């Protein structure tokens, strides 16, 4: 590599860094992204130029094919699908790095006469392993998010042992590959082992822990690129890969903190249970069999059953409440002429001068962003100050909720991070919760032993008037009952599809 080449790589790496630095403000972010993209384009052209391969036609075919399909996918993606989209792209990057590692290891396409054969072989094998792990892990994550795979954590027998031995075997493959160069079987073994490792590692992660997994995979895809860069001796690849690796790691850290969980507990132990839906079977078992069954149950299975029981109790409580509400409504209708009428959610909103809206993933699922925007506009026209409180893990990837609201034209300076708004719930006139549950569950502060214990939550329970527009009162992903719903005063439940409920609410307003 000549001096010119090295200086060009350094300049491009700095430009990429500048581009990322510009991503820290909304106003400069678009330009920052373009700067990064242009630097990348320049890097591609420089590579073709310096390696004297401008006139190899198949390269151009592949480039154009890839660019076009990438552009089409990006133009079609829905904002709510962004997490699986990012996961998919991650996987592709990781896969490409694995293939580059494979080529270098096999001595295909290497400039002759390397003095550091050992280093090249070990990094090439490492790129194969990390890249393949990223590819398979991302595919599993994307499959879970797209609901093609079971969203619940899947755990095999002896899962931890499996993870550990696959990891050790992958490392062993790297070691063997470092000693014996150019052996396709070693390379294929490494691909297989690291692919399996990626599978067992990602299949155990559940829906709520997805933001962490995606951030981590993002980091890995960068690291895979950097290692491939070490194998090819390309400074730019190493630098940019390193930057991406750092960013993914940072986001992983932020997400873990927001959920009050350590990375280790997410990857190596069981994720919190998603509400278990037990199968209803006619009870034709005799007592002895049941006893035998119970004796044979593992701790884990018992915990699962208990969770199922909990969620069932929750459902029953919810149904009871709905029934009571229905009865209450009937009574109220009969006793209509009474002078003292109870305040409704609409009355509260009509009077409110300061409203905080708490959106959750349920809002996104109901595609209610645009109605929420209309509601906010209506309240603002009424003279109210409307703010949005965004919990760091609202949505399925870091910052997902902000994008979903921005898509509905809600100005970003009305969006507040949890720390910035948590003190204001006390003074606000009304809080509207839309499809959010775990992120405002006060049980997180004191329900020890539950998955959400210790997780920082939005202080919605401190507000005097809370309007909850959720689909139902079932516990969220974490499976913990929300005591807010049973509060006697100042809580108005509008259950059902968020879109319908909000339309009704606005009609009455």
């Amino acid at each position, binding site marked *: 590599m000549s001096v010119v080449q090295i200086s060009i790589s350094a300049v491009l790496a700095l430009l990429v860094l500048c581009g990322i630095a510009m991503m820290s403000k909304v106003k400069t972010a678009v330009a920052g992204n373009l700067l990064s993209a242009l630097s990348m384009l320049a890097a591609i052209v420089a590579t073709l130029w310096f390696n004297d391969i401008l006139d190899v036609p198949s390269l151009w075919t592949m480039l154009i094919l890839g660019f076009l399909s990438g552009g089409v996918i990006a133009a079609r993606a829905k904002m709510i699908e962004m997490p699986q989209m990012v996961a998919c*792209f991650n996987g592709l990057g990781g896969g*490409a790095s694995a293939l580059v590692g494979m*080529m270098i290891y096999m001595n295909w396409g290497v400039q002759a006469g390397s003095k550091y054969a050992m280093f090249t072989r070990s990094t090439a094998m490492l790129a194969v392993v990390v890249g393949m792990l990223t590819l398979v892990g991302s595919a599993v994550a994307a499959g879970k998010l797209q609901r093609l795979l079971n969203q619940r954590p899947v755990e095999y027998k002896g899962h931890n042992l499996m993870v550990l031995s696959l990891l050790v075997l992958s490392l062993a493959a790297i070691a063997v590959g470092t000693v014996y160069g150019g052996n396709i079987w070693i390379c294929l073994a490494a691909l297989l082992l690291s692919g399996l490792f990626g599978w067992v590692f990602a299949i155990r992660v559940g829906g709520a822990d997805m933001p962490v997994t995606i951030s981590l995979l993002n980091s890995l895809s960068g690291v895979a690129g950097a290692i491939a860069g070490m194998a090819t001796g390309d400074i730019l690849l190493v630098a940019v890969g390193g930057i991406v690796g750092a960013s993914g790691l940072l*986001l992983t850290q932020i997400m873990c903190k927001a959920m009050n969980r350590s990375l280790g507990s997410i990857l190596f132990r069981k994720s919190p249970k998603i509400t278990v839906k037990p199968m209803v079977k006619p009870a034709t078992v005799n007592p002895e069999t049941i006893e035998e069954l119970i004796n044979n149950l593992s701790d884990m299975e018992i915990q699962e059953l208990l969770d199922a029981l909990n969620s069932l109790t929750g459902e029953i409580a919810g149904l009871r409440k709905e029934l009571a509400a229905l009865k209450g409504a009937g009574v109220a209708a009969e006793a209509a002429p009474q002078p003292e009428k109870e305040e409704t959610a609409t009355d509260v909103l009509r009077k409110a001068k300061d409203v905080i809206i708490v959106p959750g993933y349920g809002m996104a699922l109901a595609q209610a962003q645009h109605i929420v925007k209309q509601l906010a506009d209506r309240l603002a026209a009424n003279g109210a100050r409307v703010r949005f409180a965004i919990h760091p893990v609202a949505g399925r990837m870091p910052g997902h909720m902000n994008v979903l609201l921005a898509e509905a034209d809600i100005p970003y300076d009305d969006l507040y991070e949890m720390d910035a708004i948590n003190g204001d719930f006390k003074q606000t006139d009304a809080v509207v919760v839309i499809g959010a549950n775990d992120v405002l569950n006060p049980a997180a502060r004191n329900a020890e032993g539950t998955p959400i214990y210790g997780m920082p939550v939005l202080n919605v329970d401190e507000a005097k008037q809370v309007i909850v527009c959720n689909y139902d009162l079932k516990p969220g992903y974490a499976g913990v009952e929300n005591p807010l719903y049973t509060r006697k005063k100042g809580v108005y439940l509008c259950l059902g599809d968020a879109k319908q409920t909000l339309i009704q609410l606005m009609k009455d307003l």
Partner: protein
Amino acid sequence: MINPWILVGVFVAATVAGYFIIRRVPSLLHTPLMSGMNALSGVTIVGALSATGIAVLAGEGAAARIIGDVAIALAAVNVAGGFAVTHRMLRMFKQNKKKK
């Protein structure tokens, strides 16, 4: 070929620099940041291009060419898709016009 230690040094320096720069990005922009980073991780396209190009010129067999071509295509989808979708997202962020 560059000295391996220089490469490792560059990796460490880039990681540290990246960490401190990215720490300043507010959570508001974390999704676009991530998808932008995602696009950048497709930088491996540079390695794919050089390896494949050299392999083709050196007259390597079909296996090398196919693996190289697939690597280029995958990375190209990653790069183009990543940057395009980031651009789309960032364009959606709007400021409140009626702010006092």
